[in-house]
């Protein structure tokens, strides 16, 4: 802590202040809106970077601690702190939202409300990562989910899904494919998950008997073993819905595809990591034997996620759906790393949260650009775009290579560590679906890149152009981060290790 400046509060609330400023001062002035958004997210991003540099890598445990009593009789406090894991997530959020503000530069209608909602959402995300009080964590979680409904429902894009199969009648009745459908589905599904989380939180609160929601206090309580098992299950289902575990993942493809660019970037890049972070921090951190008992379930479903997501991605014809299913697949790698209960695996899991967050943020930013220029997401109609938009093509290729885990990209480090963890875990066979998933990922990623960017020019599109002006900001930052952390993974693994080793020590009893 430096001179008592509440850095974490600044990082968390700067975007919210920006949102308030936008709502009250920038009516009908789109440039002012964007300036305020860029500055407030810039403040968060710069402070997150400073936090990253100032973090003491030799010490384990939480740093930059802040506390403010909220409801003392109930034990609810505004408690913030970061450890190695949440540090990386805060950095990720700062990078993604800063890039996201620039990727949304061309939002045409009602940009004031758009940016205000986006910034409020980001506050929620930051809050979840830095919060140490479970109740306040839940409040921030809701803040991170609810603006999604408006953001997707108003500024999203509608696709077309032809009803087929035995449930086709249900598709017609619920209006599948429209952005309103995607918005409603996403919000209701995530709220359904948050119900499980709330039940788990209250179960811990009442059974601990200490009358505090604080993570630090609850960490010291030894909960009954069977209680741990079902509460961990509740947390796993609740947070897992947000993380996109199979079969509770179907809100994700529709949500990502229908959402506007920055919302997709934020959602796939950061929000899904909220879910995985919740499972690790709250589930594994507070319920060690519950986690150890149910690790087999987490790992098995993660393996299904990896292979199923990759196969589904291969079958899609809409570019955004490819990336959405790719996210489902990569979140499987995150959950697999956590389920291995090994140091390498958990480090790989957290690193994959970061690497995939950046990579998928980049992918969605690029897809947003392509969609904006070509007004289509149909892969079948595209071809030869690399000739007219070489910058976008290169960035997309780097993102794709990180996705399939090419060395020198961040994705490689993440996947290698996860696979190592899988091998060293009691369930070594998890390595097989994981590696098969990488193989399948290579197939669909390279195929999509070839179909869109290389080859002869498509007759359907003319007058396409490369990224310009503010659009480059997002691309350059994200590509740079992917390559930087691919070449120097120690930058991230150092602090992460100080967090994962003590966490594992409590679960895997020596």
């Amino acid at each position: 802590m430096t001179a008592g400046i509440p850095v974490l509060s600044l990082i968390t609330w700067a975007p919210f202040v920006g949102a308030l400023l936008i709502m009250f001062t920038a009516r009908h002035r789109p440039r002012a809106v964007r300036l305020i958004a860029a500055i407030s997210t810039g403040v968060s991003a710069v402070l997150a970077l400073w936090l990253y540099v100032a973090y003491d890598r030799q010490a384990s445990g939480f740093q930059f601690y802040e506390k403010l009593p909220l409801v003392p009789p109930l034990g609810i406090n505004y408690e913030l702190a970061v450890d190695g894991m949440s540090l990386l997530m805060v950095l990720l959020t700062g990078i993604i939202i800063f890039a996201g503000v620039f990727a949304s530069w061309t939002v045409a209608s009602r940009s004031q409300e758009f940016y205000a909602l986006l910034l409020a959402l980001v506050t929620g995300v930051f809050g979840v990562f830095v919060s140490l009080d479970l109740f306040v964590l839940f409040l921030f979680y809701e803040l991170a989910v609810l603006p999604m409904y408006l953001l997707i429902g108003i500024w999203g894009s509608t696709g077309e899904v032809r009803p087929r199969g035995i449930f086709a009648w249900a598709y017609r009745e619920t209006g599948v494919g429209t952005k309103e459908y995607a918005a409603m589905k996403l919000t209701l599904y995530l709220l359904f998950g948050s119900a499980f989380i709330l039940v788990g939180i209250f179960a811990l609160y009442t059974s601990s008997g200490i009358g505090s929601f604080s993570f630090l206090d609850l960490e010291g309580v030894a909960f009954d073993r069977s209680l741990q098992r079902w509460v961990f299950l509740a947390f796993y289902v609740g947070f897992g819905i947000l993380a996109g575990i199979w079969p509770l993942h179907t809100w994700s493809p529709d949500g990502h595809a229908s959402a506007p660019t920055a919302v997709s970037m934020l959602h796939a890049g950061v929000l899904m990591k909220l879910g995985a972070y919740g499972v690790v921090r709250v589930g594994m951190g507070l319920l060690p034997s519950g986690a150890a008992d149910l690790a087999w379930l987490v790992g098995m479903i993660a393996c299904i996620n990896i292979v199923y997501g990759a196969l589904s991605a291969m079958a899609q014809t809409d570019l955004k759906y490819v990336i959405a299913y790719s996210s489902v697949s990569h979140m499987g790698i995150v959950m697999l790393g956590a389920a291995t209960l090994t140091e390498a695996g958990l480090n790989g899991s957290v690193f994959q949260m970061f690497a995939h967050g950046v990579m998928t943020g980049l992918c969605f930013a690029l897809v947003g650009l392509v969609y904006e220029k070509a007004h289509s997401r149909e892969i079948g109609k595209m071809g030869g775009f690399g000739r007219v938009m070489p910058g976008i093509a290169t960035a997309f290729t780097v993102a794709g290579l990180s996705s399939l885990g090419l060395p020198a990209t961040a994705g490689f480090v993440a996947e290698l560590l996860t696979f190592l963890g899988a091998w060293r875990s009691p369930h070594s066979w998890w390595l097989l679906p994981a590696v098969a998933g990488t193989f399948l990922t290579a197939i669909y990623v390279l195929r999509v890149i070839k179909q869109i960017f290389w080859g002869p020019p498509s007759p359907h599109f003319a007058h396409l152009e490369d990224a310009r002006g503010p659009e480059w900001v997002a691309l350059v930052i994200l590509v740079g981060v992917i390559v930087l952390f691919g070449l120097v993974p120690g930058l991230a693994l150092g602090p992460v290790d100080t967090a994962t080793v003590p966490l594992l020590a409590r679960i895997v009893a020596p």
Partner: protein
Amino acid sequence: MLAGVLHGHLAGPFVLLALTAFLTAFYMFRVVFLAFFGRPHDAHAHPHEAPPLMAVPLWILAGLTVGIGLRFVVHPLEGEHGPSWLAPLSLGLAAAGFVLAWATYQVRVVSAAMLAALFGPIDYMARRRYGLDALYAGLYRAFILGFSRLVGWVDRYLVDGVLNVLSAWTLRGGDVLRRMQSGQPQDYVYGVAFGVLLLFVWAQFWR
């Protein structure tokens, strides 16, 4: 390598390696004769020398190739050299390959078509890359693409379908239950009366 294989008493591999030496000389010099010597196919083609940026590295590599080869002739390696007939045999095989290529593709006294016909089945298979490419493509299309389409369909129409069914039922259920609110006070009085009756019955049974 030939010496080592002989030393290990591996007859089959020795024959194959020797044959390969002959064939390598043949196909390499076939390319050289067809591409660089003889009459041009297309009268309108104007090939030119590679620019120095490309040619100089090629010269360096060529020089190194010859140099390394000569060095090991002058200062042979330690270890097994094989019987004295081995080195002349391998050189002879290479020379034979060169001569056959020269005869077929430079002076054209041996007919290439006749050679191909001589090795009919092998020629047929080689032109179709032994069917391996076709096999991989077939497996990819049938299994990987096919399976991926199945999984994509299952996810979109079954896994998501269950969800949409629950959603549709909720909507329908809401439509049905909505009719409870008829707006007629008589219906509400009936409801209250029925509820009170239920409470009496319940109180009796759970005394």
